[in-house]
């Protein structure tokens, strides 16, 4: 299967910031060989792509793992600090990786678990909804600034003759922003008292939390596991082909290059 390998290699090695990098020992997969061995490689995570290089200074990656339709889990290997990337596609090989220590292992597992495009898309969609809700709340507030509220606080009524001041948004101690001139407080916060004569909008009811966050309530990832384990589309088979292909192609190219070097070609 063809791949735009030059572009892929460029993406892997260009100076766009990586999401995580480091040395890991990668288990060597041998079909007809007893005993396991590991090779130390330089790993670079960019987006949903995990590249590995023979050495940190290598100019081209040796291989590529596409982090879609996979799980990252701690590994019951003989090695300490081992974890595995396993794919839902039964035909795809697993990658067993070993970190230098507990902290490194945890950091890698965390980074890899959240690397998928699907995860990003989920988060973005969730934020889109939240932004929409926040805008709607603001719009509703602006339309009816004199709506009575259930708060029992005393309120200064606005004097229609006065022009409201144009202020930049200020941040209150409780972290909510407020705008003047028909603006409002987003969320159920209480406002500080302004000088008399300025409109004080009533506080909005407490912001409703989205279904995703209220369902779990845990301090860890707010997405329930069910949301992350979506049914595997047939396209994941394509990704495992990419892994196999890329590894082989690069190995062949490297051998050819090394042979040319030996023969004294530039």
């Amino acid at each position, binding site marked *: 299967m063809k791949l735009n390998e030059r572009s892929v290699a460029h993406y892997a090695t260009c100076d766009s910031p990586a999401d995580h990098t480091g040395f890991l020992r990668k288990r060597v997969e041998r079909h007809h060989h007893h005993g396991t061995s590991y090779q130390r490689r330089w790993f670079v995570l960019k987006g949903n792509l995990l590249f590995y290089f023979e050495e940190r200074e290598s100019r081209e990656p040796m291989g590529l793992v596409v982090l879609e339709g996979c799980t990252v889990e701690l590994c019951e290997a003989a090695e300490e600090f081992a974890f595995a990337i396993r794919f839902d596609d039964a035909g795809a090989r697993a990658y067993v990786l070993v970190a230098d220590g507990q902290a490194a292992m945890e950091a890698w597992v965390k980074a890899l678990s959240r690397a998928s495009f699907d995860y990003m898309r989920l988060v973005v969609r969730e934020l889109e909804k939240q932004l929409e809700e926040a805008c709607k709340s603001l719009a509703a507030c602006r339309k009816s600034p004199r709506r009575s509220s259930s708060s029992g606080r005393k309120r200064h009524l606005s004097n229609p003759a006065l022009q409201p001041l144009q202020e930049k948004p200020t941040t209150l101690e409780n972290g909510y922003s407020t705008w003047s001139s028909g603006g409002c407080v987003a969320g159920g916060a209480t406002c500080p008292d302004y000088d008399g004569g300025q409109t004080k909008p009533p506080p909005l009811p407490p912001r409703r939390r989205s279904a995703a966050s209220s369902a779990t309530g845990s301090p860890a990832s707010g997405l329930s596991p069910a949301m992350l384990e979506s049914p595997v589309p047939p396209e994941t088979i*394509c990704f495992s082909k990419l892994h196999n292909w890329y590894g082989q192609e690069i190995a062949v190219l490297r051998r050819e290059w090394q042979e040319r070097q030996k023969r004294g070609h530039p």
Partner: protein
Amino acid sequence: AVLKKRLVKLVVNFLFYFRTDEAEPIGALLLEHCKITKEEENVFSISFIEEPERKYCFECATEEQCQEWVEALRRASYEFLRRSLIFYRNEIQKMTGKDPLEQYGISEEARFQLGAHRQ
């Protein structure tokens, strides 16, 4: 240049292409650091940052289909998603004073920070 009929599938940030009626793709394009250009009628092209003169051209059945593909492909990169996330996070933070990523436990991750210089 000869145009060959292909089944084309956009899956996350990869564009796979198949010979029609075949189950396995014959090729894939990683859609990062690329530019999608609307060419003549029904045609768009994909080119990559390190080799801008090399264009992968695609001809669609209709102009409407062509526009759909251009829009979908422009939003297909992981980097585009990341920029969207940073944008929404920033906007929500400005409006509500709260960081929406805190509930996911990912607010500290470097890859989601505002002002990070990303391509």
